[in-house]
């Protein structure tokens, strides 16, 4: 069966510090991968998605970036965090192709920028 991991689970970082959040998927190959951010009490905002290694699409211009160095690894980064980067970050994967494929979500990372 497929599983999705995210780490760390919780992170407290000062403003201006760098960020690296990691997401890995097991049990499937060549998935679509997604990064979402959820502000407190709000919906999910799509940040980045990837349909393959090295292929990253950005939905929201900001100081965050994403990379996919391996087929099942998706990394969210920042060189200098802002207070507004605080939130709950969710990674998700889905199968490719047609059909009503759902997205499967990881457990999330709670980021607090102080």
């Amino acid at each position, binding site marked *: 069966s497929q599983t999705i991991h995210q780490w760390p689970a919780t992170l407290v970082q000062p403003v201006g510090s760098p960020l690296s959040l990691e997401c890995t998927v097991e049990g499937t190959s060549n998935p*679509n991968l*997604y990064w979402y951010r959820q502000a407190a*009490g*709000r*919906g*999910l905002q*799509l940040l980045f*998605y990837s*349909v393959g290694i090295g292929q990253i*699409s950005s*939905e929201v211009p900001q100081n965050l970036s994403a990379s996919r160095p391996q087929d099942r690894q998706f990394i969210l980064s920042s060189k200098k965090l802002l207070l507004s980067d605080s939130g*709950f970050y*969710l990674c*998700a994967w*889905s199968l*490719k192709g*047609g059909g*009503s*494929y*759902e*997205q499967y*979500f990881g*457990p*999330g990372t*709670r980021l607090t920028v102080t």
Partner: protein
Amino acid sequence: AQTVTQSQPEMSVQEAETVTLSCTYDTSESDYYLFWYKQPPSRQMILVIRQEAYKQQNATENRFSVNFQKAAKSFSLKISDSQLGDAAMYFCAYRSAYGSARQLTFGSGTQLTVLP
């Protein structure tokens, strides 16, 4: 671009009663998929039910069912025999049937409280 609107930020229901959560969406596409996700206090996103736009029959999963009105672009979720474990944030989501990325567009969510 597609948009998804959930006009009820909060709802409450008595245990064992029925509640309906509303969702409307805007799209110019004819083929798409709609989903309801549940996010309990653990923050884990869980798929509740899905609907293919080309199917007229409303989807049903045990106590959960949808009322899909394609012309009205409405996709409501009905929870029957509500249980305490149903308390969560519920998100409606849209996904196009076109393109390779298959990304979801989410509504802002409805916080459901189940009263004992």
